[in-house]
């Protein structure tokens, strides 16, 4: 398939991004560069200096709302992309409303309880919408441990499923970026096979 055809196909789809941190910002970047037409991005946080080691933000954006800063950066790549932002802390109640109408959702939280929350919420309230989860990306090295697992038609898990972030095992740009891009890669695989 030629890139012009890929971009034309992807233009009609809407992808939800739950969290605009390391996974969400980098995954969104890959999706916009590939041609996805609409992104729905939700996050409550602001850009901090510590985020710059892995997240798709710039020093001048420290202090800005992540969803606003990310929208600005994505529009610098492609001014025609539709970015719907929600400055909100996602929970069981508002998640179905925020992501209703999306063709697929990318889980991009840092907290494991939030990961559990969105898997449960999508299964209950948004059945049939595929969810792509990131789990296990702390530290460096170990390329061979990072895998992509199709659980069923509606759930995919990317990561090593073992390494949790800690003081001694921080999240760093390469591994976070690998998982974020593998999530974007699954999104393309699903959407281009539709």
């Amino acid at each position, binding site marked *: 398939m030629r890139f012009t055809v890929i971009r034309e196909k992807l233009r009609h789809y809407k992808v939800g991004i739950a*969290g605009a*941190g*390391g*996974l*969400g910002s980098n995954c969104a970047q890959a999706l916009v560069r590939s041609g996805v037409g609409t992104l729905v991005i939700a996050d409550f946080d602001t850009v901090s200096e510590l985020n710059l080691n892995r997240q798709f933000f710039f020093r001048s954006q420290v202090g800005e709302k992540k969803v606003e800063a990310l929208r600005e950066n994505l529009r610098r790549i492609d001014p025609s992309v539709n970015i719907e932002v929600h400055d909100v802390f996602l929970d069981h109640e508002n998640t179905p409303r925020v992501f209703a109408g999306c063709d697929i959702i990318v889980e*991009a*939280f*840092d*907290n*494991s*309880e939030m*990961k*559990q929350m969105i*898997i*449960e919420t999508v*299964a*209950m309230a948004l059945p049939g919408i595929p969810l792509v*989860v*990131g*789990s*296990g*990306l*702390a530290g460096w090295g170990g390329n061979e441990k990072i895998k992509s*697992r199709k*659980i*069923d038609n*509606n*759930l995919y*898990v990317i*990561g*090593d*499923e*073992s*390494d*949790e*972030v800690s003081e001694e095992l921080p*999240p760093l740009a390469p591994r*976070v970026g690998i998982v974020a891009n593998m999530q974007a890669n699954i999104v393309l695989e699903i959407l281009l096979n539709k």
Partner: protein
Amino acid sequence: MKIMLNNREEIFENESMTVSELLSKKNMTFRMRIVKINGDLVDRNEYDNTTVYDGDTVQVIYLMSGG
């Protein structure tokens, strides 16, 4: 019974067992997890009351913090 656990065939002497028994038998004790049986999510408060039978497909997913 014979089940598929995370895409691998597993054989147990029991004819059935609860999700809790299966998780402890396989030492899958990490608490932040998701369990699906035949594609259906198991309520995390119901692991003691949900039974795995011969032929079931069980997926256990560990959720690690970081993103």
